[in-house]
């Protein structure tokens, strides 16, 4: 390897880190700099609240690792398959990771540096603040400072595991989509059957019992996947033009609305198609099911699976909102003879058409082991909460929900608005142990009121964003 080639990697790394910062600054403005502070405060407050419920710090640490893993999965995909999302928000976006066509750098090297950049950037700006928030509570709870420092290291490793997994699956997908399905089914089957100790093959295993052996088994998969992803990835720079038979008329006949039809078709035509809605709901469902089981195991409570799943799926429908608003903007609709009220109504229809059936698949699937009454309550709660989430998101973010993520004041407003409904529903799920009828009644009542509020908020959003459309 030549000297100039040796210098290339650190240069690329520095430029990619700078690019990532500028990307976030462009997306979210100067307020992005305050986001690490918010992460520290939120994580500290959240962990403190958990300790009030007698949750052990070990359980909290395990939860943080799980959260960071899913975050890593998401970050790993955004740079690769989320390119259309970036283009929608920023216009034509060219990232260094896509520069193999114009620079004498291989795809593999670009992806490897991209992955290293993600690890460093997010480890410092997100996982560091998360660890600080954890430390503030953990030290008071008697956790050794060394264990707190270790948490930063192992969550960073877990983040790498998530990004590496995304990248490897994306790399496999460039060769065979069938292979991705087979691998996913294999992993899920191995985990559910108890044949594989997931914790032992993740950095959490090292955190729980540090040793040379646990370091190898815990960090090994992250390293292997981080290498495998770039190796497997085959960029499809050119290919046959994608065609699609006339779907519009058929979908329009069903939905009865042009804006809803367009939104559904755009989600269907984008990366991951409508399956990404099903996938994201599946992840939420699994996380909720594990949490409910864990609460049942470590406490004397027996939370309502129906209320918990209905609530979490409803809140998680935010991602569907993001997808149905990803490919257009208010400026385009201001060129058509259509009111913002009609735009938001069409968007809501598309949002519900995509998210509700996807969530119901899992809720109804849970009938296998969850009592029918609990599932029925979940089936009622879920769409009502989804309607509320639509109203809140429409009012706070308009047709640009991605800006919410790092816009601290809006993020706080959004969090508070969701908390107002989520807290009583979670309480209802927990008290279900003692008084199931009351809990079910409260859950349905709260969800119904929330839905009504959601409808009103959506109406207000139409007026608000219509007024704003007349401003620069």
């Amino acid at each position: 390897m030549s000297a100039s080639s040796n210098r290339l990697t650190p240069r690329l790394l520095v430029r990619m880190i700078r690019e990532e910062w500028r990307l976030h600054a462009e997306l979210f403005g100067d307020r992005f700099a305050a986001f690490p502070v918010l992460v520290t405060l939120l994580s500290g407050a959240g962990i403190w609240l958990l300790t009030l419920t007698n949750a052990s710090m070990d359980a909290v640490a395990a939860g943080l690792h799980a959260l960071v893993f899913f975050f890593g999965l998401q970050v790993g995909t955004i740079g690769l398959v989320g390119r259309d999302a970036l283009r929608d928000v920023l216009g034509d976006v060219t990232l260094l990771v896509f520069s193999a066509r114009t620079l004498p750098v291989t795809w593999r090297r670009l992806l490897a540096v991209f992955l290293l950049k993600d690890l460093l950037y997010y480890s410092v700006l997100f996982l560091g603040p998360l660890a600080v928030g954890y430390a503030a509570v953990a030290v008071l709870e008697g956790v050794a400072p060394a264990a707190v420092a270790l948490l930063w290291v192992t969550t960073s490793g877990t983040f790498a595991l998530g990004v590496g997994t995304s990248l490897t699956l994306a790399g496999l997908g460039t060769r065979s989509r069938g292979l991705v399905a087979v691998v996913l089914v294999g992993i899920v089957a191995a985990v559910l059957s108890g044949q594989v100790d997931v914790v032992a093959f993740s950095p959490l295993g090292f955190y729980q019992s540090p040793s040379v052996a646990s370091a190898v088994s815990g960090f090994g998969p992250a390293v292997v996947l981080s290498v495998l992803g770039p190796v497997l990835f085959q960029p499809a720079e050119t290919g046959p033009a994608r065609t699609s038979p006339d779907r519009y008329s058929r979908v329009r006949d069903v939905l009865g609305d042009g804006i809803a039809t367009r939104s559904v078709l755009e989600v269907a035509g984008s990366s991951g198609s409508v399956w990404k809605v099903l996938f994201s709901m599946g992840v939420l469902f699994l996380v909720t099911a594990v949490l409910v089981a864990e609460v049942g195991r470590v406490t004397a409570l027996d939370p309502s699976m129906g209320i918990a799943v209905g609530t979490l799926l409803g809140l998680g429908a935010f991602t569907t909102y993001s997808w149905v608003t990803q490919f257009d903007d208010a400026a385009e609709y201001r060129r058509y003879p259509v009111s913002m009220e009609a735009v938001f109504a069409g968007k809501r229809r598309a949002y519900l058409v995509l998210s509700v059936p996807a969530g119901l698949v899992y809720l109804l699937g849970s009938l296998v082991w969850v009592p029918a009454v609990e599932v029925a309550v979940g089936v009622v709660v879920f769409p009502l909460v989804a309607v509320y989430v639509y109203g809140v998101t429409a009012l706070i973010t308009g047709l640009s929900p991605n800006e919410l993520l790092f816009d601290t004041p809006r993020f706080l407003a959004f969090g508070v608005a969701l908390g107002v409904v989520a807290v009583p529903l979670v309480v209802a799920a927990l008290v279900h142990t003692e008084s199931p009828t009351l809990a079910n009644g409260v859950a349905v009542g709260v969800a119904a009121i929330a839905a009504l509020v959601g409808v009103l908020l959506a109406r207000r959003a139409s007026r608000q964003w219509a007024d704003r459309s007349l401003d620069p």
Partner: protein
Amino acid sequence: MTGIETTELTKTYGDVTALDGLTLSVPEGELFGLLGPNGSGKTTTIEILTGQSEPTSGSASVLGHDPVADPLAVREVVGILPEREDPPSFLTPREYLQFVGDVRGFDAPDERIAEWADRLGFREKLDTMSADLSEGERQRVMLAQTFIHEPDLVFIDEPLVNLDPIMQAEVRDHLRDYCAAGNTLFLSTHFLEVAADLCTQIGIVREGRLVAERDPRDLEDETELLEYFRSEVDDATADGTPDAGEGTGPAAADGGSDRAGGGGNR
């Protein structure tokens, strides 16, 4: 009858004045070209006239409708082709034009789509995902969405960019035919060759004000129009405003936005 009328139209973005008392009148049937350096307010003018933006002061009328009081009424009767706008990436041209038909509420969309796809030469691409079309093909689809509802007045920012020479000639013919039928066309362009060839009247806007207006057919050729343009914007050029005379044809594609002080377009 007057197609477009503005009186003392002013638009400010904070400290920046994008339009500074713009007054103009465009009769129906005119092929009017608005010329000016980058940032002179051309795009802002179109945004206000189509109800996409509200003026700080002044008034406007488009085919008898007030774009501030009733923007939807204006948008119903006009077609709009913004600068550097593509059809939605994950819809095919057929699906996009069906969508346009839905929001515009016109009848027999399939027949009209086929007719316009034939006219603009993208019929074989009707079912191709727009993300996979060439830039020229995307521009043709955008032209189709501008005219498909047979509007009485059309606003276009740079109609010929990215089109091959044959298609450019066909679009020019179409625009002339369109105005010959009594319709009005309001064209914003950097390309003097386009203005000289197409327009029956041009207005030169500088720093948000209309500084000159004339029939370009009175001029000998494109070079003379360039000299005329230079003389009108000379003061602004001396102040450091980019010389819009650079590049006189659509092949010299210009990525600059004309929305003074308002940031770039999408």
